């Protein structure tokens, strides 16, 4: 980091003091409870370094950061050319502002960051690691430890680096649904019985071949293997492969030609990287929610509360469209759209519930009876909160729950700048009304668009249906805060998987033009397959569940009673990338020290079927086959398995295929 006596940086810091303070005040008024954020002003190079290091200043030495940095520089297009937001999950959080950014961009980052910080502080998945992660210090400490190993003359640098590489291949193979529990260096590996092959031990006894042949013949050995009360562990399949290797891993010693214990430094690095995986896991699990959440509040503060000055707004809007419009499955826009959809549907449900309690209105006649324009007019925010008129300050009732009493007093004295910060006059309730979603121009169709099915569903559990005499009566008591209240609840308990599963509806998919696609064997390209929300949800589930990676578990650490590691792929209908899986097995061998075995189900397309499919323009159905891949340190063996050996791996209740039935051959 550059010394702070840099004049430009100081000037920039000075200029940003006010936005930083005010953003934090506004965020809290809006109901957010962020960790405090420390802001740092850095130059372009520092920013690129921070991005390469995953948002931190110090990480362990590894070529991978160099690679990211290199690409970062080459591409120069991170988030549309500039690095906008870097914020750490830490308490206090640390955020970085790039010195050369325009003021509007800085403000956008600041507002965005406040919301991220709120998410870090309140989402329960982040508590899985720690509510006080002390992350910068932890990562820095990890860096020093590993650097010490590298500097250690007894340990070869290349060996340390290779070892890190091996572990990084498994960085997503942890149990992210469980809280992180550190494994200490000297934890007794209690389950680690001596599983040494009897024949190995015999070899060590140095018996003459004669004796061995006569006394300990093959038959006897075979009997030994069977009698050995075969210790199978773990008892339950273990998803945290890194933890399993940390406890039971060995390394293969070329000279001794057998597995030997891992060195202390190896165990320590394993645990360090495992801890980092757990630390970063919540961010990976909540990417859509978290980015959407930050974009939502950023947009509200910047655009709706004029946090961007009039002249800055265009730059801001441009920045926003760049971030949101960058093709593919974009967590920023999907997240923002979902949060806005939740806000609208929640507000709508609340209004509809009241309307259905009006005498004479039922789900059957709802659309015919209700004048939606009239309803929306009724819902328009009170002029009191919609705009702040200086002359009317004296008429405002101090007791109005929407008014911030303290600010009102100051405003009357003239000691608060309401022209720049009109929101200061309001409380949470006031702001909720001021920004009520259903009456915004873009959302005016929402209320009338509610389906009869949904109306029926809502009214099914309703009682007291004749409470209000009129629509006006019903709407008078509308709570403007229900949308935001609900959003905050959701941000506490959900992760991306549950979030999408619960809130993605057909209405949402239609409104936002989402569709699914699949690879077509008949045409050799990717085709749109469905616009049905169930299909879209399937594909999203596949991309989000388990970091979008296949689930691999340790099934047996003493496979066939030979100390081999049996991994099983819990097959969900989507096959593994077999070549990559083999490369990964080679890496795991280095951490296990003995042969490693992977069982999976592969989808195989018959050549003939493919040919027929191409000719008939229909899709072939693959055959699912059990496969066992074994790597013994030098060579691979691949073997087809009987179905009963893999039947337990095949999930029967999921299907991620979205191809229409009639496309199939």
């Amino acid at each position, binding site marked *: 980091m550059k010394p702070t006596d840099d004049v430009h940086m100081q000037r920039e810091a000075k200029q940003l003091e006010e936005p930083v303070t005010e953003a934090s005040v506004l965020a809290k008024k809006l109901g957010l409870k962020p960790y405090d954020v420390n802001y740092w002003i850095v130059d372009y190079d520092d920013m690129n370094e921070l991005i390469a290091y995953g948002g931190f200043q110090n990480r362990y030495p590894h070529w991978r950061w160099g690679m990211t940095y290199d*690409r970062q520089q080459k591409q120069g297009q991170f988030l549309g050319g500039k690095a906008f937001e870097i914020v750490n999950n830490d308490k206090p959080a640390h955020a970085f502002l790039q010195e050369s950014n325009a003021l509007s961009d800085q403000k956008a980052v600041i507002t965005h960051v406040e919301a991220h910080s709120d998410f870090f502080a309140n989402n329960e998945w982040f508590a899985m690691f720690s509510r006080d992660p002390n992350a910068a210090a932890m990562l820095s400490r990890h860096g020093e430890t590993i650097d010490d190993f590298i500097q250690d003359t007894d340990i070869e640098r290349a060996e340390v680096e290779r070892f890190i*590489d091996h572990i990084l291949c498994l960085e997503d193979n942890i149990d992210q649904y469980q809280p992180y529990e550190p494994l200490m260096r000297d934890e007794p590996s209690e389950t680690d019985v001596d599983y040494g092959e009897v024949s190995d031990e015999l070899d060590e006894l140095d018996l003459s071949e004669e004796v061995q042949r006569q006394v300990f013949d093959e038959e006897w050995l075979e009997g030994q293997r069977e009698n050995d009360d075969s210790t199978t562990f773990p008892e339950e399949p273990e998803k945290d492969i890194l933890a399993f290797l940390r406890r039971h891993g060995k390394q293969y010693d070329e000279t001794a030609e057998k597995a030997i214990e891992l060195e202390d430094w190896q165990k320590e690095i394993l645990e360090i990287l495992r801890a980092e995986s757990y630390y970063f896991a919540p961010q990976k699990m909540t990417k859509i929610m978290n980015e959407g959440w930050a974009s939502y509040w950023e947009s509200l503060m910047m655009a709706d509360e004029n946090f961007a000055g009039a002249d800055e707004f265009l730059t801001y809007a441009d920045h926003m469209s760049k971030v949101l419009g960058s093709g*593919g*499955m974009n967590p920023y826009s999907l997240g923002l759209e979902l949060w806005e959809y939740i806000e609208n549907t929640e507000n709508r449900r609340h209004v509809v519930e009241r309307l259905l309690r009006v005498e004479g209105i039922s789900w059957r006649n709802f659309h015919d009876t209700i004048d939606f324009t009239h309803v929306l007019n009724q819902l328009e925010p009170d002029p009191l909160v919609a705009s702040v008129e200086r002359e009317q300050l004296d008429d405002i009732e101090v007791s109005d729950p929407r008014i911030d009493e303290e600010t009102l007093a100051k405003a009357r004295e003239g000691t608060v700048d309401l022209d720049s910060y009109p929101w200061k006059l309001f409380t949470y309730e006031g702001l909720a009304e001021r920004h009520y979603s259903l009456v915004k121009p873009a959302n005016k169709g929402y209320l009338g668009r509610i389906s009869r099915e949904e109306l029926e569903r809502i009214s099914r559990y309703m009682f007291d249906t004749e409470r209000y005499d009129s629509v006006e009566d019903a709407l008078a008591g509308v709570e403007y805060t229900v949308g935001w209240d609900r959003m905050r609840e959701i941000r506490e308990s959900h992760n991306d998987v549950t979030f999408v599963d619960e809130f993605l509806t057909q209405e949402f998919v239609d409104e936002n033009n989402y*569709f699914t*696609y699949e690879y077509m064997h008949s045409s050799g390209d990717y085709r749109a397959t469905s616009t049905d929300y169930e299909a879209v949800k399937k594909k999203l589930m596949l*991309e989000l569940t388990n970091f979008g990676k296949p689930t691999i578990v340790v099934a047996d650490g003493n496979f066939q009673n030979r100390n081999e590691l049996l991994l099983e792929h819990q097959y969900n209908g989507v*096959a593994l*990338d077999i070549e990559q*899986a083999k490369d990964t097995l080679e890496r795991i061998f280095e951490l296990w020290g003995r042969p490693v075995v992977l069982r999976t189900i592969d989808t195989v397309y018959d050549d003939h079927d493919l040919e027929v499919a191409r000719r008939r323009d229909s899709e072939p159905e693959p055959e699912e086959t059990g496969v066992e891949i074994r790597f013994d340190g030098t060579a691979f063996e691949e073997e087809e398995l009987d179905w009963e050996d893999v039947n337990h791996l095949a999930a029967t209740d999921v299907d991620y295929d979205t191809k229409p039935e009639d496309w199939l051959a």
Partner: protein
Amino acid sequence: MGLKDDLERYREVGEQRRQDLADFIQYGDLGQSRRDEVRVPIKIIDLPEFEYDQREMGGIGQGQDGTPEPGDPVGQPEPGDGDEEGDPGEEGGDHEYYEMDPEEFAEELDERLGLDLEPKGKKVVEEKEGDFTDITRSGPTGTLDFERLFKEGLKRKLAMDFDKDFVRAALKIEGWGPTKVFEWARSEENLPVSRSWIENAYDDIPNGDRTQYGSLAEMTASVEREETARRIRREGVDQIPYRREDERYRYPEIIEERERNVVVVNIRDVSGSMRQKKRELVERTFTPLDWYLQGKYDNAEFVYIAHDADAWEVERDEFFGIRSGGGTRISSAYEVAMERLDEKYPWTDWNRYVFAAGDSENSSNDTEKNVIPLMERIDANLHAYVETQPSGNAINATHAEEVQQHFDGSDNVSVAYVTSPDDVTDAIYDILSTEEGDNER
């Protein structure tokens, strides 16, 4: 520790993971490289992980204006950026390359194949700066050769100087006047004296003195002449006549730098019998040769000639792709090559390499009657013929053999046979090492 180290390590790791050069030449994707930049793929850029088969996965997209109908093609899916921050493009799947220039390529190939070809041949004069031993008439003041200026000035002074008293005395000869003295001084005494000086001197002589001597003989007898050099030594140099024309500036010596020029002629049979596989083998052999020679010489130029029964010059871009019909007459290409070389790349100034490739098929007698004589007539460091016959020998394909028999033992003709990518590096080695044994001409 720190990102600089990480970046350095990344570059090192990248270098280690670069595809083996021989593998690259034989089986690699040459198409990513340019003529002046060799791009060798880096084998594994990222660490492997357990991942889904991309094709089996499918995905979701978002329509910009409306939603595509099921069945509409959607193009290659873009990699989602659903992964953690700071990993832009990580799943891009685009290959990483180790980039090297032809010099490095040539060096590495030498090392890999155990070659050590020191290019030789035509030395073309190029002016390069040496010591400041030459001089020129103009230049920066600092390089003014003052010693020379002084000497020249002195010479000039000596040349301009004359024994004034002696000339004055001549003016005192009775009956002589300025005209007579001038003629005498210039023609007989060879004194650098001007007419105006003489006239002024005559004016200064009082009338009584103008007849002091009766004759020239009388004057010379009474006046002692003094040598200029002696007089200068006696009087000292009060004024040296520096002249601009005497100024010389020291100037670096022009060293005759030997620049190494090379022209490589690539000839390829594009007739109907040269199918895809044969074409590929030609490309695999020629491209590294081109890079290599380019890396070995300071200045490389290339001529690409395609031929069937006729030959024509083409651009590199199209060279390996052309397919034509018709028969084969290899000599047509050598005719074009000779014409081109003589016109633009004289043997005195250029190293010449003429590489031809094809499946050894040729029209009857053409090899013996035309090609071999042409090869003998075209001066070159090296002639090579590369036979690409994936299926071994065809019955009528005897061009390579004929050439080989004729030039057997020659140190500037090489014939190589390539039947599969495995043979490529051997062929390159054979071709290049043919010249290796050559001596400085």
